[in-house]
């Protein structure tokens, strides 16, 4: 039983990281109706910024997270302005290809700036976990990740549900043209969405690398793809869906590694996704949450 709980904790921690990334995917998809495949690479940039601030400038971890958030937010807005905005009227495929291009661009830029040699990311959280929790593999990072994930989800629900900007986002999500007629600045709303998504990516990057310390230009790729899977799993566009999808994906992955095969874990994760989509094509929450963010 102890061992089972340990796997569950491992799955929850990894799942929370996926969930934070998936929230970014789902925000952008829900409002801009586009898959931002460069999201995973913004995560990587965020992690590098944090790494540089702590390792090269010697500043405290909190400052490094803030720096990462600022840089990624600006980067997200820039990417949107330069790469996606000119394609607002183009077909979805053109935007998708552009997103993949941006992803490669970011990876190669990172390789030029920081080199291909992997760096070891030092965890940003270092408090001691009580022994009774430690027995179940609960680490400081996993506690922080789970809490951060819950806070972010609650904040996003509140933001899209209660604030004026949130309402504007939901309006854009439902019908861009109608929203514009109602006096909503659609371009600014979409930029705002990218800013939020990229800020989330920065936080996800720091937490991801605190959890699995290898930092290299491709760090964001696989977690990015898995988080995208989680977002689809939960019903893309739905905030609680991304959260539940991420957590479930982490747990399924941990259990598959624990009880079936470590080598086959990824295949099992994606097989589960296929089965879920066959039964519920809109994802777990896609159907029951009519108000897409």
């Amino acid at each position, binding site marked *: 039983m102890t061992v089972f709980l340990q796997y569950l904790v491992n799955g929850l921690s990894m799942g929370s990281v996926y969930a934070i990334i998936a929230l970014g995917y789902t925000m952008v998809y829900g409002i801009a109706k586009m898959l931002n495949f460069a999201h995973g690479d913004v995560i990587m940039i965020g992690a590098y910024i944090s790494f540089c601030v702590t390792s090269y400038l010697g500043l405290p971890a909190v400052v490094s997270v803030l720096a990462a958030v600022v840089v990624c937010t600006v980067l997200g807005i820039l990417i949107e302005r330069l790469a996606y905005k000119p394609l607002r009227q183009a077909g979805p495929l053109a935007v998708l290809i552009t997103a993949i291009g941006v992803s490669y661009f970011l990876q190669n830029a990172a390789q030029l700036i920081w080199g291909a040699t992997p760096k070891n990311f030092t965890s940003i959280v270092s408090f001691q976990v009580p022994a009774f929790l430690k027995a179940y593999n609960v680490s400081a990072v996993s506690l922080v990740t789970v809490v951060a994930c819950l806070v972010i989800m609650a904040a996003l629900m509140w933001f899209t549900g209660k604030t004026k900007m949130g309402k504007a986002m939901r309006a854009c999500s439902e019908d861009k043209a109608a929203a514009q007629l109602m006096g909503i600045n659609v371009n600014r709303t979409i930029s705002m969405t990218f800013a939020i998504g990229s800020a989330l990516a920065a936080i996800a990057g720091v937490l991801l690398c605190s959890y699995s310390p*290898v930092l290299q230009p491709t760090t964001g790729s696989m977690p990015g793809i898995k988080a995208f899977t989680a977002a689809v799993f939960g019903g893309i566009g739905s905030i609680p869906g991304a959260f539940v999808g991420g957590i479930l994906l982490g747990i399924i992955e941990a259990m598959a590694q624990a009880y079936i095969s470590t080598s086959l874990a990824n295949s099992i994760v994606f097989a589960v996704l296929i089965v879920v989509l066959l039964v519920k094509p809109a994802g777990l929450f896609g159907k029951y949450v009519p108000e897409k963010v």
Partner: protein
Amino acid sequence: MSSLTGTFNPVMNRRSVIAGVAGLGATSILAGCSDSASEGGSGASDGAAFKIGAIGPLTGAAASYGNSVCNGVELGCKDFSTDEFPLTSKAEDDVADGEKSVNAFNSLADWGMQALVGPTTTGASIAVAEVANSDPKVFMMTPSASSPDVTANKTCVFQACFNDPNQGENAAVKLAEMFPDEKFVVFYNSGDPYSAGIRDAFVAKAAELKLEVVDEESFKDDSQTSFTNQLTKAKDAGATMIFAPIYYTPASVLLTNANEMGYEVKMMGCDGMDGILGVEGFDTSLAEGLFLMTPFSADEEKNADFVNAYKAAYDEVPDQFAADAYDAVHAIVMAMQEAGLAIDADPAEIAEKLPAAVTSIKVEGLTGTLTWNDKGEVEKDPMVYVIQDGKYVAA
């Protein structure tokens, strides 16, 4: 040790950091072997020197390996040159790709190469070994390609490094000697022929030696970010020591994860673990007490001359790739004299006569005492080091 096939490898080169910061771009990194076709050694001017070719990835993801090999060959040609037997070398870039490696081989053959030290990576070496072993034959000794497929059924192809099965067996023998009472978990990359090759031989030999292997855990390149689940399993199975024939990048994750979990476990790796102390940002105190079975240590007294000369020439500490390449040059020179071959001997004649000479010599090299069997495989004593105070100490 390397099993790169030219596609992707997590272990990247350190030079690209410098080049990247300088904004030069990954394709222009040709440090060390200052350009892709540099000539070195003495006697290059009068043209009457013995010509040794070197092939390795001088650019791309595996560039650090190729640069080390080419530097090792260049330095070897300088050090083993004599007035009667001057040496010259030329290096070609193959970007760790089989096809490009064969092109590099052909261009070296046009240059008049009499013996080849290379290629560096396994995929490229398998491709080139085929060509080198078909008429007109050229003698080839790879310093670092560790798969048995490189030398299998070829008369003029030799290895200067351990092959994977040898390394696995040696590891089992050493562990049985040093830690007979530990319970082992084997931790390997199932998608990497280097790692899986060592694992297969290790498991077979461990069974024979009655080592207690309680668990086996694997991962793949796309899932080497976190090993918490595998470690949970190993801990649950009661493992007290990890045998990890993996590269140093995933190994650094493994050590970090184990530390976070509070899992106190001994660990031994093979030559792929060499380099772990150089990972930027890695808390090297986690590697204290880590055992590695690697043929070369730059910290050892007897290698000081080589290390200093290498540092002076290339401004970095030599790794085992450089040492293996240096030993390969050493072996070729010794075997040439053993076979009584002239300095201007035809490459085909060398390819015919040198193999017999190589199997009869004994090289006191940087990586131990080297002898070869008629299959082209090297035999040398494996050395086990333990990391103490950030240095390799003989265990």
